[in-house]
C-alpha cells in the first residue's frame, strides 16, 4: 500500500482534505480492503483518543494527569447513565455503581460528569437534561456525600448558575 494514504486518511479525519483527495480516498476505500483496514484503524484511534482526552485533567501549570481507560469508561458510563435518566424519566444511578464496580470513582465526580453530559449532548437531547438537571443534581449530591443537606444546597446553587450562564463548572 502506498504510504501517502496515511496522510490522506488523516487529512480526511481532520476535515482538511480537498474534494479531489476525498474522491480519491472514497475510490480507494471501495476497491482496496487493506486501505479500508488502515482507515478503520485510524477511526478507532480517533475515537479512542477522544475518550482519553475526556478523561485527562489538564492542570493550569501545564502538566497533565493521565487517567486510565478504565476511568475514561467510567466517565462515559456517567454520561450515558445521565442520558438514560433524562430520556427515560427514571433513575439508573441508583444501583449502577455496584453493578459496574465503579463506586470508588463516584464521590465528588458524579455531578461533574452530569454537567459534562448536559453540556456535550446534541441539541435534540439537551432540553431533556435541562428539564431534569436540578432534580438529578440534588439526588446525586444526596447519595455522594456524608453531608447531603449542605451539598444539596450547593449543588442546587451551582446547577442553577450553570444553567443560567451556560458555563461549564
Amino acid at each position: 500500500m502506498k504510504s501517502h494514504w496515511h496522510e490522506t486518511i488523516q487529512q480526511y479525519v481532520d476535515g482538511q482534505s480537498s474534494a479531489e483527495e476525498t474522491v480519491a480516498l472514497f475510490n480507494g476505500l471501495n476497491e482496496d480492503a487493506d486501505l479500508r483496514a488502515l482507515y478503520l484503524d485510524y477511526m478507532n484511534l480517533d475515537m479512542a483518543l477522544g475518550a482519553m482526552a475526556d478523561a485527562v485533567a489538564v492542570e493550569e501549570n501545564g502538566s497533565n494527569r493521565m487517567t486510565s481507560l478504565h476511568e475514561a469508561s467510567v466517565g462515559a458510563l456517567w454520561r450515558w447513565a445521565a442520558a438514560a435518566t433524562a430520556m427515560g424519566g427514571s433513575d439508573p444511578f441508583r444501583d449502577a455503581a455496584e453493578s459496574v464496580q465503579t463506586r470508588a470513582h463516584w464521590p465528588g465526580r458524579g455531578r461533574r460528569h452530569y454537567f459534562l453530559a448536559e453540556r456535550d449532548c446534541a441539541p435534540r437531547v439537551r432540553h431533556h437534561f435541562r428539564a431534569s438537571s436540578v432534580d438529578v443534581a440534588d439526588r446525586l449530591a444526596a447519595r455522594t456525600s456524608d453531608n447531603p443537606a449542605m451539598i444539596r444546597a450547593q449543588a442546587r446553587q451551582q446547577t442553577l448558575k450553570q444553567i443560567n450562564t451556560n458555563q461549564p463548572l
Partner: protein
Amino acid sequence: MRNLNDQHQIQFLRLFAEHEPALRTYIRSMLPSRGDALEVMQEVAVVLWQKFAEFDGSRDFRKWAFGVARYEVLAYLRDLARDRHVFDEALVHRLADDAAAAEPRHNAQREALEACLQKLKQAQRELVLHAYAKGTRMDELAARRGQTAMSLYKALHRIRQALLECVRRQLSAEGLP
C-alpha cells in the same frame, strides 16, 4: 429488593458500558467527523434505551446495537449529503461490515493505546490530548503554541501515525493480527 424496572436499567447500563467503545468506533467508521459520530452516538444511545424492552437477552447485544447504529448513521448521512460530500450507501455498508469484523482487533488496539501514549514524549502527549479535548479549535491551539495550523496538523499526523504503528507493533508482538 430491586424491582424489574431497576434490573432492566442495570442490565442496559452494564451492556451499554461494555460495548460503548466498540459502538463509538463503529459509528465513527461511517461518518466524516468525530463531531458527527458523537452526535449520532447520542441518538443511538437514546434509541437503544427506548428499544431495550424489545431486546432479546439471549441475543448478542453488540450485534443488535450495531444494527440500530447502522440504520441511524444512514439516516444521518442522508441529511448530511445535502450539504457535504459523504460516503455512498454501498461504501457505508462495506465499512460497517469490515468494522464489525475488525472489532476484536480494534478492542486490542484500544487496550494497547494507553501504553503507547505513555511512550510518547510528554510534549507530544500533551499536544495530542489538547488537540482532542472537547471544544479545542486547532487554529486557536496553533496560535497559542506560536505555530501555523498547518504545522500543527502535520505534528498531529506524525503523532497519530506513530501511535498507530506502536499499537500495531504491540499486537503483532502478542501474536494478534
